[in-house]
């Protein structure tokens, strides 16, 4: 029972969604919209589990007093402060359980934390990619064998496509780069995508039929 009912649910909803795709009628659309709405709502309940997990792991680390045990305190402080700002605000001069008002977010600190803590860290993490793309290129682009050489040459040609110091060969490099990006690129991506499509479809089918059930626990 503990496994059969969930597997039956997977089958029923999976098959329903397949048929729904072919039925344009209004009632089929209504059910489709309801189902998607439900998933968002269940997601929020799951988020509560997630936050609980984060808090528990942090507290375990703090209690164990292993290396770096102090940092989870910062995580928890950030978490609770932001929750406090996110769930309270002033409206008509009184503090309460508010979020949005006509003037925007009811607690300006929520916005401040977003703009001056989340955004700078986020963009800097993203910007780290500039450095990592350089170090990855240095480390991995070695002409060790045919495959590695192809990888290396294609990357070099594309990276040189607007380089002004190439003299007369410059235009040819630019043409070669755009050919690489338009022709082999298209072919390879299409081959990969067709493969992915088949793999996904097969996996989805195995899930619906209950063949692939590794994601569902035992007992």
């Amino acid at each position, binding site marked *: 029972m503990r496994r059969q009912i969930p597997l039956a649910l997977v089958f029923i909803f999976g098959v329903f969604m*397949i048929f729904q*795709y*072919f*039925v*344009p*009628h*209004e009632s*089929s*659309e209504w059910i489709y919209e309801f189902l998607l709405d439900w*998933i968002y709502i269940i*997601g929020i309940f*799951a*988020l*509560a*589990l*997630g*936050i609980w*997990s*984060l808090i*528990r*792991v942090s507290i*375990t680390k703090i209690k164990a007093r292993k*290396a770096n045990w102090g940092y989870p305190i910062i995580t928890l402080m950030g978490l609770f402060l932001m929750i406090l700002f996110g769930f309270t605000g002033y409206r008509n001069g009184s503090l309460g359980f508010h979020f949005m008002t006509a003037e925007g977010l009811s607690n300006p600190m929520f916005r401040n934390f977003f703009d001056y803590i989340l955004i700078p*860290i*986020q963009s800097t*993490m*993203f910007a*780290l*990619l500039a450095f*990592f*793309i350089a170090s*990855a*290129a240095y*480390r*991995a*682009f070695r002409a060790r064998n045919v495959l590695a050489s192809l*990888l290396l040459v294609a990357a070099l040609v594309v990276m040189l496509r607007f380089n002004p110091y190439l003299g007369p060969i410059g235009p040819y490099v630019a043409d070669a780069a755009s050919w690489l990006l338009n022709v082999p690129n298209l072919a390879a*991506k299409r081959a*990969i*995508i*067709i*493969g*992915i499509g*088949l*793999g*996904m479809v*097969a*996996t*989805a*089918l*195995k*899930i619906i*039929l209950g*063949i*692939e059930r*590794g*994601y*569902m*626990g*035992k007992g």
Partner: protein
Amino acid sequence: MKYKSLVILLFIFCAFTLSAAQEDAAPVDTMQVDSIPPPAPVSMLTAKDGENDHGHSITLRWELSADDGAGQNSVLSYDVFRWVPFFMDTLHSIRDSLDVAEGAVAEKLREQRDQAIAMIPQVHKSYPEQGEWRKIGTALSGQASFNDVGVKERESRDYMADHTDYYYRVDAVTADSTVRAASEVVGPVRSFGQLFNTGRIPVFVAVLVFGLLTIFFVVRAKKGAELYVRPLAGIEAVDDAIGRATEMGKPILYVLGLGTAADIGTIASFTILGRVAKRVAEYQTKLIVPCYDPIVMTVAQETVKAAFLDAGRPDDYYEDIVYFVTQSQFAYVAAVNGTMLRELPATNMYMGVFYAESLILAETGALAGSIQIAGTDQVAQLPFFIVACDYTLIGEELYAASAYLGREPILLGSLKAQDYAKAAVIILAALGLLAASLDWTAFINLFSVTS
């Protein structure tokens, strides 16, 4: 001076572009527009229920006016009109009041609105009395069709009732919008929802063929047919990597990526996680699984727990093997980066759906000296994994991995089905090539999905 026509012309154009504020501010004193002879009207106007839809739409088609792109070449656009009963204004005024109403008044108005909506088919029967022609849209010159699309939500102002008799007319309009030619009226026509989308027949055929193919090979595999699968370096590395971690006494980091439980790539990754976790439990190595999505975390916990049970070591399982970090892309990456440099895992596995963070993770992992095995179905991230990881499962290989690791005949059977589908793709592509070269459009149209 053709004052009048120009003023009217401007007026109509402005009304159309919704800039009421500027309508009157246009004194015209220097401009001349020559008078335009009336254009030919459109012909053969037809109206039909919109195909393959949920109803609430009518498709109009016509033959272009003789003066559109030819003849006097004076037609600039087509105005589409529908006959609208005055009763619809009553309905709109109920909607208006409802917008501002509260409490019991709103309740009452909502009831009135629903009653009014129920009467829509009936009031359209009074055509051509108690109603008037109203413009519902514009088609540009050269276009010979128009879709009158409403919505199905009764709360909306754009609600268009099904099973109602509608009447249409199309005007050919010149630059001087007073100079126009009306078509014949078409109607009555009714909209309704269809039960089967014929535009999607190719998909339906593919579903049936692929489904039957898979079931056939799975059944055959169950009966015990031997199946060959070629070796995949990335898969073989998984076993070695777990062994290496055990020898070194270091943990294994398994990253499920940014996918949600909605992504098949993530679900494939659960299966791989299950296999890895089972072996980890047998070898008694430490496993770390930080998660980005809370539902993914929940499923991953179930998976790992079941794997430990399978391996006969349920007591070694604890809930925090799989833990939630945060649902923010780069915060998750920052935390996983930190984990990599502090726990120094022997092996990092990245399986599932990844975005821009792929390279940040893989480079940090390389810095920490871990063996790295990646697999993703995100084509854009494959180059970075290929460059920065030791082994990469490319696209479809990620989905095949679970079958490879498990070596269960049923799962291998479905791989065979995938291979047959690929063979079919090659044959179809070759045929399609011929078809395209020989202008054999009938074949190409077999694959066109229209809606």
